[in-house]
């Protein structure tokens, strides 16, 4: 392996070769130990009892229903937060108004709340002892320990993902292009779909893929509101927990491996989207 400095005129400002090799070795060893090993372990343990057992574990009815619920949850959360993200970043990035940075801080709030607390707040509102609990029970509507609660808690934890990606991106692009389109007679929606959207599409993809990964993988918040009813209110991560706690390790890791694959796909798409965004943004900068 050859290690060189990542700079054209190396020599004057570089570490001695042995320092470079030492730093690189320590860094790579750390990453191998803390990132690669867990990743490898998921798949190794999932396939421990062979391919047959792996497929069997995934075909369990409870697992299939967990997969279905996870897909439903993501299918509601991602569009809801995508719509919010686009609308919020339009208001925040294209206009100036007092209290803007405070609003951005509020949008980021769910990131700093512990997942367990995120679930708890919905129990406090919709649970039996909560604000709306008695009314909901009288009308026979179940939110907590049912699918709506899982969706609500997931919307909360994935709330900022798309907005916080789009706000800086749209801010960096300014509003000259939109103004030009409007001056030329385009309607508001035409302007958005023909001018703004092409500029932010990689940012949208980036936000959507991260939002989706979290929506499908959320554990703490969902665990509080789910009630763990097998075959009906278990998402994939909750199913992993149940299998693990029942000591069916191979099955737990088999189900977990779906989520690990999802994580790898997420990283790949994210890297591509990032690369595409870097390609488009400097051009926009140059034009101004």
């Amino acid at each position, binding site marked *: *392996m050859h290690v060189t400095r990542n700079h054209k005129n190396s020599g004057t400002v570089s570490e001695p070769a042995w320092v470079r090799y030492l730093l690189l070795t320590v860094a790579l060893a750390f*990453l191998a130990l803390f990132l690669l090993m867990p990743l490898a372990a998921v798949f190794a343990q999932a396939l421990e009892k062979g391919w047959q057992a792996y497929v069997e574990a995934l075909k369990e009815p409870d697992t299939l229903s967990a997969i279905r619920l996870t897909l439903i949850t993501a299918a509601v959360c991602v569009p809801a937060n995508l719509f919010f993200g686009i609308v919020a970043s339009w208001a925040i990035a*294209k206009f100036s108004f007092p209290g803007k940075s405070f609003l951005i801080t509020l949008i980021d709030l769910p990131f700093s709340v512990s*997942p367990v*607390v995120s679930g*708890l707040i919905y129990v406090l509102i919709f649970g039996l002892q909560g604000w709306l609990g008695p009314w909901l029970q009288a009308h026979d509507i179940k939110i907590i320990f049912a699918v709506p609660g899982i969706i609500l808690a997931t919307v909360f934890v994935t709330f900022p993902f798309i907005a916080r990606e789009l706000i800086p991106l749209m801010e960096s692009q300014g509003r000259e292009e939109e103004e030009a389109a409007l001056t030329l007679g385009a309607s508001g929606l035409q302007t958005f779909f023909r001018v703004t959207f092409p500029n932010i599409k990689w940012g949208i993809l980036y936000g959507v893929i991260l939002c989706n990964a979290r929506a499908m993988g959320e554990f703490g918040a969902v665990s509080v509101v789910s009630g763990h009813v097998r075959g009906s209110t278990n998402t994939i991560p909750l199913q992993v927990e149940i299998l693990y706690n029942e000591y069916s390790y191979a099955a737990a890791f088999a189900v977990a491996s779906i989520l690990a694959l999802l994580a790898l796909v997420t990283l790949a798409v994210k890297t591509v989207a990032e690369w595409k965004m870097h390609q488009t943004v400097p051009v926009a900068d140059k034009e101004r």
Partner: protein
Amino acid sequence: MSWPSGKNNVLPGFTPALGYTVFYLSLIVLIPLSALFFKTATLTWEQFVAAVSAPRVLASYRVTFGSSLAAALVNAFFGVLVAWVLVRYRFPGKKLIDALVDLPFALPTAVAGITLASIYSPNGWLGRYLEPHGIKVAFTPLGIAIAMVFIGLPFVVRTVQPVLEELDQEIEEAASCLGANRWQIFSRVIFPTMLPAILTGFALSFARAVGEYGSVIFIAGNMPMVSEITPLLIITKLEQYDYAGATAIATVMLVVSFLLLLCINVLQKWSRRFAE
């Protein structure tokens, strides 16, 4: 009508867009969060203090904050090292490793949790070598800290990396011309520039670790007073239908999160001013 958005702004849709933003934000985030404070307000002060300062709760704070601090310190060191190697050196597989740094963001916490628990269990891949030397990881605060290192690492790398990338190498060349050796250049020129970003990454990693649940509970063993984290205690109280107790502890956690968020915002402003 004169909106603060300025008379020159011809773009449409400000009022409905901002209106929907505030509406959705209130519905999903603000009203539910306020429920926590209203519920806590129904407790008397004595009840609140009793709930948040019971010995088992205090022990859980010690475990949570102690492990988070240790993990954030480890991440601050190795995060800077990883960022340095990724920015300054060229080596095969660099792009792949760069992408892999975000794995803890993408891998669901429950998956990370059971995987770490199995690696460090007495007959796991690493546990079997550590156990004979008397190093117990699974079911101890050490295991909790390891899980927290895993989930916190990308925060430090991703805050330090852009600062290193934008660092002007001419400054280093100037220092070198003036006779500084490599270590002096690092400690007097490069490190001070990175410091705000390192502190921000440290705080982000710490904040994430404090609230973390999924990746920790499997490796923690969850023994009361020894390896029980505060978020788990909230769930335990809920399962015992002690809503008041759960809410009081959750309020403490939330206030701590807000304070950390405030620190992080101040740190980020500081690093931005540093960059200019």
